[in-house]
């Protein structure tokens, strides 16, 4: 089952690679998502406090706070936000650890956009159902 209207899905992308989040954000916008991008863990938490997204796409390795630290804070303060972990690690362990701590799913870089979109939609529907 897919969301009826993608415009209703608000996505926050957090990754310290600015050229990555700029382009990914632009491509998701072309496909109808409402996207915001930030380049650090602290900036992600501030953005969430100001305007909580439906889905957070979160890199594991960032300066200031790690992705897992951000995930823990989000699950504590705003558990309704579903989190998708992005990882550049070659192994699955890092992503699995995120899921054990409450992430909806994990995706490895480089990102398959269609896979990411499907995962965002599924995460959104799960969040709405909860």
């Amino acid at each position, binding site marked *: 089952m897919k969301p009826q209207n993608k415009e209703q899905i608000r996505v926050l992308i957090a990754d310290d690679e600015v*050229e*990555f989040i700029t*382009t990914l954000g*632009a*491509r998701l916008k072309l496909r109808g998502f409402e996207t915001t991008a930030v380049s650090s863990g602290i900036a992600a938490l501030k953005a969430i406090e100001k305007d909580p997204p439906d889905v957070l796409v979160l890199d594991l390795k960032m300066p200031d706070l790690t992705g897992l630290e951000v995930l823990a804070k989000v699950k504590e303060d705003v558990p309704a936000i579903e989190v998708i972990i992005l990882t*550049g690690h070659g192994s699955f362990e890092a992503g699995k650890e995120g899921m054990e701590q409450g992430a909806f799913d994990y995706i490895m870089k480089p990102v398959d*956009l269609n896979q990411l979109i499907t995962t965002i939609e599924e995460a959104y529907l799960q969040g709405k159902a909860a």
Partner: protein
Amino acid sequence: MHANPTFDTVCIQAFSKVSASISHEIKNTMAIINENAGLLDDLVLMGGGEEGVSPERVKAAADTIARQVIRTNALMNHLNRFAHSADYDTGQESLHEILSLIVPLTVRQAAAKSLEMSAHCPEDIKIHTHLLPLHSLLYLTLRLIIDHSTDADKLTIEGDVKDGAVFVCFTAACISDSFISSFSANELQILLTKLKASISSDDNQLCLTFSGTVLR
């Protein structure tokens, strides 16, 4: 740390950390290239309308791809140079070139801590020694200092010759007495022994002095 470190395990540890760091960073450059290649596809698909394809957006995506290719190439050059330090048991290399290799290998870890790093070394110093353990020791020492540093600290690396011996000194606020004590007990001692190098410390500074032949 390994339970029973040997010379081989410590050198492998250095190479593993270098490989893991560089491969992780290359995943990021590939992710950026991937997104921008996808964006070019998107622009072509969108370009069927009256407005056509925006040349500015195409150029921006192409420039980003080119930048990331340059970045990836630099990363692979560093990995290649580090790997070749194992070609021979001993060899001769410029100390300036060695620091120009080792310091950039730790830039990502330093950036994660907002650590400001600077390295200074005359260009005319050459050292003849065991290059693999030398590269490994300098890299692992830098990584250890970065791990112990606090956010927004400054780290200075200085290489030169004094009394006929090459030295490399690291200066940072986190280099305290307790750091020096833990460094002295560290498995890096195995590399210091191989290199016949000694440690000295003073006022937030750790110095490694090497006994290899110095050429100038």
